């Protein structure tokens, strides 16, 4: 069988990119799971209702705008109690935890955060009925923050 130079190069690059994407330190993911457990106190986490808005490609990790929007009627009977944002690879898992109530009117929060690495972010909302909802976002960071001088 003859293999052309083009197909060989393509296959090798493809394999390299594949491994790069798959390799993720196991302990970081475990930490993130532990942080999620600490917030939900073991309650099941459901996908949906939460929308985490962040640019997929971030040039400067020192200040990254994020917005978390939670779909909720925000009435005294049914509202969002807390919103937290967790990360996977910063030195510390917590980013911010907001506490709101029916007087917020709308569960919309934005801020600017630091990202030390390309990683996954998780936003979790705690509802007044005790349920937890989440959304995740993968971000690629080209200039890291937290550890290096800005």
């Amino acid at each position: 069988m003859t293999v052309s130079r083009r197909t060989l190069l393509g296959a090798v690059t493809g394999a390299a990119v594949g491994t790069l994407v798959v390799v993720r330190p196991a302990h970081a993911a475990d930490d993130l799971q532990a942080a999620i457990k600490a917030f939900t106190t073991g309650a099941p986490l459901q996908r949906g209702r939460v929308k985490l808005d962040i640019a997929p490609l971030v040039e400067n990790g020192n200040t990254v705008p994020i917005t978390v929007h939670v779909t909720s009627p925000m009435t005294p009977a049914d509202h969002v109690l807390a919103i937290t944002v967790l990360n996977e690879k910063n030195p510390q898992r917590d980013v911010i935890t907001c506490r709101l109530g029916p007087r917020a009117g709308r569960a919309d929060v934005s801020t600017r955060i630091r990202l030390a690495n390309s990683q996954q972010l998780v936003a979790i909302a705690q509802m007044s009925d005790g349920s937890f909802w989440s959304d995740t976002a993968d971000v690629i960071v080209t200039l890291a923050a937290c550890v290096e001088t800005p």
Partner: protein
Amino acid sequence: MARALITMPATAKRGEIVEIRTLIAHPMETGYRAGDDGQLLPRNILRRFSCRYDGEQVFSAELFPAVAANPYLTFCTIATVSGTLEFTWEGDRGFAQTERVALTVAA
């Protein structure tokens, strides 16, 4: 006193949702960064933010080192009665600052 900016409407209709944007000048030193001498710089962050509307807390946040320098936060509240909104930031090294903004609510 750190410089703080609070952007919100001065007047609102009763029941209207007002968006509040806050920004405060603060380095938010993470405690994970080395200085010029190679030693880790001690942590100096804002840890807590809260907003009270006529004495009742409507929003609060716990901040961690992953919040960018000069923390910016936006959130919403329902205009209920004319009154004062009190914004408080607390942090390391005894940092505490309170700003007040009046909101007039028309029926």
